[in-house]
């Protein structure tokens, strides 16, 4: 029983850490499209690891079936929403920050 708890704790905490990393990325990225990449880290890795950890915790019950459905929901709808947002942002003039646009980009001078 202890092994399941320890494994759950490891998976769930890793999911939480990835959520924080995604949120930090959302704050520090220069423009909208890189922020979207960071935000999708929360959806995929963070939520995925947490859900797998919780499924371990509940074993073969109805709750774990609902968690699997929750995982599938995130798996299918999160890319759709991100695509829609990126499409709208590009349409409405959110310019991605390109390297050659500002001469040398600060991080990697050519």
């Amino acid at each position, binding site marked *: 029983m202890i092994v399941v708890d320890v494994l759950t704790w490891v998976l769930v905490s890793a999911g939480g850490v990835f959520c924080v990393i995604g949120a930090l990325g959302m704050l520090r990225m220069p423009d909208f499209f890189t922020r979207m990449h960071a935000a999708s880290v929360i959806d995929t890795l963070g939520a995925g690891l947490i859900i797998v950890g919780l499924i371990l915790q509940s074993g073969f019950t109805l709750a774990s079936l*609902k968690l699997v459905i929750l995982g599938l929901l995130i798996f299918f709808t999160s890319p759709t929403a991100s695509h829609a947002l990126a499409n709208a942002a590009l349409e409405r003039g959110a310019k991605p920050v390109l390297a050659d646009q500002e001469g040398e980009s600060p991080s990697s001078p050519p």
Partner: protein
Amino acid sequence: MIYVVVVTALLVTLALALVRAFRGPTVFDRALAGNAVGTATMMLLAIFQFIAGRPEFVDLALVYGFLNVIGTIALQKFFRYGDLGEPGGTEGEGR
């Protein structure tokens, strides 16, 4: 007791997403932050089921997940096309 780390991590994620929502220059940044808040809340609901031992909370997480996605797509559609389209309008004249 094992969920302390992940609950604090999710609360920090919510706080950071709110900061992005306040600072976000364009409206799409705010929609993105809303999406992140929705996902973090869904995870909190799913975890709360195990903390409180009551199995209804994963249903709440499911409903919240659906509403969050629908809200993001509606927001995107409104700010891209200017309105949400005529109710039952013909799909022929796509903008």
